[in-house]
């Protein structure tokens, strides 16, 4: 018997009787409840995002880009090295040899 029994929720997590199917259904429901719609950005906010991306491109300044996901937003930090105006994509260099192509429409904030 380990110390865990007395810490946190240990007593209850070790003594409960849950059907695996029940647990699965609970987790699935919680996952679905965490689903969200993409925020609609104000025109000024979009301008700010674009300015920040262009600055990063010109001045090789590192930025953190927040990308929308239905369940959990993703953050990437790096320098914008390519801006594809036609495809509306940027290439974000995360570290040497590692990069990420990001669609500008998926970005919800840049800091």
């Amino acid at each position, binding site marked *: *018997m*380990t*110390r865990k*029994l*007395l810490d*946190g*929720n*240990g*007593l*209850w*997590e070790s*003594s*409960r*009787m*849950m*059907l*695996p*199917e*029940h*647990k699965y*259904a*609970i*987790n699935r*429901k*919680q996952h679905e409840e965490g689903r969200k719609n993409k925020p609609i950005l104000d025109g000024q906010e979009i301008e700010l995002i674009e300015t920040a991306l262009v600055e990063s491109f010109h001045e090789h300044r590192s930025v953190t880009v927040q990308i929308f996901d239905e369940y959990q937003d993703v953050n990437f930090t790096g320098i914008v090295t390519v801006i594809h105006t036609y495809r509306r994509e940027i290439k974000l260099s995360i570290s040497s040899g590692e990069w990420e192509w990001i669609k500008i429409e998926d970005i919800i904030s840049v800091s």
Partner: protein
Amino acid sequence: MASLKSSNRVIMLGDCQSFYASVEKADHPEYKDRPLVVAGDPERRSGIVLAACPLAKGKGITTAERLGEALAKCPDLVVIKPRMQKYIDVSMQITEIYKTFTDLVEPYSIDEQFLDVTGSMHLFAESSEELANMIQSQVQEATGVYTRFGIAETKILAKTACDNYAKKNPSGIYTLTKEMLPETLWKRPVSDMFMAGSKMTRHFTVMGLPTIGSVAQTPLGKLKQMMRRKFGKNSDIKAEMYWRIANGIDDSPVRPGTHQVAPKSVGHMITLPRDYAKLEEIKVVLLEQTELVCQRCRGLGFMAHVVSVGCMGADFDRPTGFSRQIKMEDPSNITNQVYSWACRLLEMYWDGLPIRRIGISVTQLTTDTEYQLSLFDTRREKSMALERVTDALKNKYGESIVMRAVSKTEAGQAIDRSAKIGGHYK
């Protein structure tokens, strides 16, 4: 009437009375005034009473008793086969009702759930008992299930209040405060204590601790010493657990996301419909179970390093069987790989006597995003691709959409199993 101090947490344990039976009664109003039980399938040895409605209990029928005995006590008993999926659905419907009162709801079993209403109680009611009463009638109205509530400042006291008092209270609601313990819980026999089974009760009695109060009032250091003498020095944590339970000390939170924690093991066990005595037959079931366990691992994104197999002999009077584990060369969640290790265990340790129960479980789980490439096993990628497809098919169309040919043999259980939850029909 007891009331909690405003500075304390307000925790409730909501428990559903005769849950499966109540759900069936709500669904079959024609049986409203008749004694009713939900019982497993007698032909598959699972013919025991899973739940009895209060009317049936009044006739002396108890949970877990054999269906035959129950019918002897009450010949006009209504017997209904379990519908596990329905009970899960109703349980989650009740969770949703609880969640309209607080976001802190933690299911503890299919018919018991913790609620932390500390922050939201004032929005709905003047007192915790008034709130419990509101929740109780909402659940009754929506599902036909009667709920009982233990209310206290900790989870352990809420559970204790529910099990020992709320269930026997006409209102089905009971508040237990720490100040009340000496006059209430502490006077009760140690067998009423949470987590004290019949064995532990006997040990406590021998130690001269016949009541919950006597455990609570033994200084922790002394209780540890007493238990060490009986169980060795690894019993300190157990001693502290019982001491805290007896004193109502418990700082565990009500954690809604508690079921998202990564499992430590994944396993499956089955009671066979008849005794299996041939190695080939046992292997069929072992393969089917390995498939289920590996499939679950793949769904969770885990590989396992250790596999264990357990068998129980058919003869109840002379118990035989084994439970052994082995570490595989590399972690895996590929059915055929895990199965070959499971077979090794079976062939090594099975004594040749007929078996009644067989199970497999895997432990030491790691994520399956990285795995060891093998120079010799070139089929791995292929197996993985194949299982990705069969898993997707099963998720979409049900477990029986694609299965191994052996499952169609007489020994196969997979088809039957796919219609079940927790060993009972969906």
